[in-house]
């Protein structure tokens, strides 16, 4: 009734609901959940791996399982270790994918918000997960002793 008035800032009937219909974004919810899980795991587990396997081991300061084939293969054959490594490697990648995607947004690449970017980034995390499963299953056969 008063559409022609120059009152761009009146709020009334039907103006409050925004431009689109709202519904919970289940996909966002899931990826955020994976991001949070991965973040916790990376925070709690990664520093010690990097310290021991990336620094102390190569420098020979302490003995580390991955320095010798025997101990490494022995450990890698353990199914619990395989499961642990899957969690350790795959989950953080969902965290990284999420963060890097938003980092691109922050650095001025709005396209990183779109569905194609989501497919690339979260798809990448899924690919790393599948690759990890493949490597864990094919590298050293499962052994129970």
């Amino acid at each position: 009734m008063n559409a022609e008035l120059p009152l761009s800032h009146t709020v009334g009937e039907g103006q409050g609901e925004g431009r689109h219909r709202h519904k919970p974004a289940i996909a966002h919810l899931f990826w955020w959940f994976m991001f949070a899980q991965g973040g916790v795991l990376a925070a709690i587990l990664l520093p010690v791996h990097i310290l021991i396997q990336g620094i102390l081991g190569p420098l020979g300061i302490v003995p580390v399982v991955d320095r010798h084939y025997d101990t490494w293969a022995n450990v890698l054959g353990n199914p619990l270790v395989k499961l642990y490594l899957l969690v350790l490697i795959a989950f953080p990648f969902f965290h990284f994918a999420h963060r890097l995607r938003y980092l691109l947004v922050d650095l001025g690449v709005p396209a990183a918000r779109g569905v194609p970017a989501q497919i690339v980034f979260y798809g990448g995390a899924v690919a790393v997960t599948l690759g990890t499963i493949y490597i864990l299953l094919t590298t050293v056969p499962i052994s129970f002793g």
Partner: protein
Amino acid sequence: MTATKRITIKATRFDPDKDEKPRLQTYEIPFSDDSMVVLDALNYIKGHVDGSLSYRWSCRMGICGSCGMMVDGVPKLTCNAFLRDHWPRPITVEPLNNFPVIRDLVIDMDDFMHKLKAIKPWVIRKQPVPLGGGAFVQTTAQIDEFRQFSQCINCMLCYAACPVYGLNNEFLGPAAIALARRYNVDSRDEGLGQRLPVLADAEGVWECSFVGECSVVCPKGVDPAKAIQQTKLDTTMRFVLPFGNRD
């Protein structure tokens, strides 16, 4: 008191009818009293130097929320940004970041007004409660659940500090989500189910990447960043846990 001190204020000037883009205008004014704040300086300019400078203000006691501006690049309430903290350096006063500028230091905050309405910031009950029954019983511990989120004065400093909002104006934003949480965790409210579609929408809580600056600049001790992450967590738990409360 030294009445001879002077301080330089650089204020944004912009009149959409005359100017292509905003520019800074420099004013030198007497800094006569250590109690003076940036808002006093603006009032001096408007009253005695240049009546055409436009900005909003009212209560000058940090509660009406209208005098938020960028003071040397930081979003602040100008009524408690003291000149003595800057003198003798000049002070740059600009309109709040991330909002369209209507004129000089005045921003267009209608976007927030729409978002505020969208999150249904009122007590929602499944059944109407008659007044005759008296007030609800609510313990201080129950009030503590939402107390800090109810302190929001809608001053828009958090939106000005939020790069996520700056990059994407569709984002629901810190204050609106904090106010939604204020009602969601109020023991008298039963409207969580009605607010979640808006909160957990693609442009809702998920957009937030937890920069945390909203909580840093809030002049009232509200922690919107926390409200947003808690909403993410609660929402996720509702869907992830098999017996999540899905009312």
